């Protein structure tokens, strides 16, 4: 019976609000835009952060990436005085890291050489990656055709290459992919497989792989191309000796990533007086991105709170006006025998109907706007379920909180005075 009475109250509330359609709609606008803006903003923020997080996760959350880097002073003095720049990670470093820590699953070295791939008349600037088979485990990408490098290729010093989808498309148009010969810097390599590449130029994060990669066995790279790179530019030449450009370390569990990274750093610093390497820990970046997202959410939450507060005050204002306007109705109801509680219930229901209707329209708008943004601006957006649920709950809350005062005021009117009210 309470239930049917509640339903009758709600129906009566809607009916009363419908008497002043324009006013009710205008009153709801605060809630509509408040809730709509919150959901839309959260969706855009969530989309952006998901994109960043995805990119970080592609680096592998359990990985540590150590890259060679020219030390600052050496770079500054430039090619003029120094005839040969020697820096970076050593083959020894790889062994030391691999052997020193039992929290490490595997290590993957990479030697990066700039080269030109040539098939017939077609050429493509490539980044040769001399590495070991476990590269393909760590930087796991879809295999499109053929196979990836194996230990046998290493054992046989095989002149084989794994191309990316991009490289294969550019170099091998109209040719049988597998078994084709690609000429790279005076050497011929047999294509054994093609993999997908996840790198994107627009991303702020650098993935270990690039779309111009060509993967060859590390020992082949070392033998054929040596450790010295010569760069010629405007008449001068720079010679660089770098043994390994990158070491990717996979740690056995995410909990050990940060401690292992710190330990490796300590160990490397013993052997490298100049800081000629750089460590990047995707997990740390992930944490950082999450922290940024938290800050962003707090800012959004504050904006949302303020807009909902304003929406609530708007509703309260109108309800106070409504109480004044309907003073006589309140008097009549009290004279008939309505208790204060029932008057409070009536006005509270009206306020909640207003705020919840506004909230629901707001949720609709909040879902529509991100959809339009994705459609037309091609930005990723994610409308999260919790933001929708939270908005619904907040709508009810705003109705109750901001409806309470007008409702109490209505209920506490003296029935005699209220009846005399013109």
């Amino acid at each position, binding site marked *: 019976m309470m239930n049917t009475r509640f339903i*009758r109250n709600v129906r009566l509330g809607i009916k009363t609000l419908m008497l002043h359609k324009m006013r009710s709609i205008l009153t709801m606008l605060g809630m509509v835009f408040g809730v709509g803006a919150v959901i839309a903003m959260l969706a855009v923020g969530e989309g952006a952060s998901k994109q960043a997080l995805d990119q970080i996760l592609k680096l592998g959350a359990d990985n540590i990436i150590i890259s060679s880097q020219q030390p600052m002073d050496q770079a500054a003095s430039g090619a003029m005085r120094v005839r040969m720049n020697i820096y970076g990670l050593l083959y020894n470093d790889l062994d030391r890291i691999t052997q020193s820590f039992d929290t490490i699953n595997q290590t993957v070295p990479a030697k990066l050489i700039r080269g030109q791939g040539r098939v017939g008349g077609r050429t493509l600037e490539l980044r040769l990656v001399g590495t070991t088979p476990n590269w393909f485990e760590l930087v796991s990408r879809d295999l499109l055709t053929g196979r990836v490098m194996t230990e046998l290729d290493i054992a046989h010093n095989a002149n084989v290459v794994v191309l990316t989808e991009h490289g294969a498309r550019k170099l091998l148009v109209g040719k049988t992919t597998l078994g084709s010969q690609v000429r790279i810097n005076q050497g011929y390599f047999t294509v054994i497989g093609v993999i997908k590449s996840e790198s994107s130029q627009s991303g702020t994060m650098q993935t270990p792989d690039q779309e111009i990669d060509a993967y060859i066995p590390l020992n082949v790279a070392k033998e054929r191309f040596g450790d010295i790179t010569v760069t010629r530019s405007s008449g001068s030449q720079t010679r660089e000796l770098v043994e390994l450009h990158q070491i990717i370390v996979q740690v056995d569990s995410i909990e050990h990533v940060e401690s292992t990274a710190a330990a490796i750093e300590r160990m490397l610093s013993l052997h490298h007086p100049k800081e000629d390497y750089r460590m990047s820990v995707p997990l740390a970046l992930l944490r950082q991105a999450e922290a940024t997202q938290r800050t962003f959410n707090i800012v959004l939450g504050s904006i949302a709170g303020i807009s909902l507060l304003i929406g609530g005050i708007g509703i309260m204002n109108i309800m106070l006006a409504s109480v004044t306007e309907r003073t006589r109705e309140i008097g009549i109801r009290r004279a008939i025998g309505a208790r204060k509680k029932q008057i409070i219930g009536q006005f509270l229901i009206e306020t909640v109907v207003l705020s919840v209707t506004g909230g629901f329209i707001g949720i609709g708008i909040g879902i529509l706007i991100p959809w339009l943004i994705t459609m037309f601006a091609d930005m990723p957006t994610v409308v999260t379920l919790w933001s929708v649920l939270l908005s619904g709950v907040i709508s009810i809350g705003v109705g109750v909180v901001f409806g309470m005062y007008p409702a109490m005021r209505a209920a506490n009117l003296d029935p005699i005075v209220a009846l005399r009210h013109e």
Partner: protein
Amino acid sequence: MGDQDVHALAGVDLNIERGSFWAISGASGSGKSTMLNLLGCLDRPTSGRYALEGQSIATLSDDELSDIRLQHLGFVFQSFNLIPQLTVQENIELPLFYQGIDASVTAERACAIAERVGLSDRLKHRPTELSGGQQQRVAIARALSNNPSVLLADEPTGNLDTATGQSIMNLLTELHEQGKTIMMVTHEPEIAAYAQFQLVMRDGKIESIIENKNRVAGGALA
């Protein structure tokens, strides 16, 4: 059911028999409205005693007063005081709604009462679509719907023309004959003439109580 003792205003001592029909008159400020508010349990005496059906009102809480109004009293006002956003039927059902009675029951009862006041074809209308006399009939129907023992009427014909006013008075007389106690405030002698007793107030005191010998008979002028 019992007697109604009133100690009100200044030294007012009054016994109202169940089933009697009273007209309260007096100049404005004479205390007749306060009297009606007290009788209607909208107000509590600051001192003294008012008992309705043997129950003293002075010590009751706001909720208890509400319940007494809901169970035992019906109000009819000068300006009808119907709730504009509700239909005739919903207005009549209002006291039953607050009693928590099921919607199917209240609808049935509203129809029966509407028929009694001659408005069964107007149930779905809004109050604003009715004439003044019809609106007052709806108000009376609403006051009757909870089957109260006492009807309190505050200038029930004040906003009506003479003929309509008479028809409303005939309706009240009829209800009186059916056993309702009726307390009516009026300043029109012709209207007061319908009551059994005429209570004249002055400066918060009872000036006189006159028993009407030449009452207008119920239905005689209809």
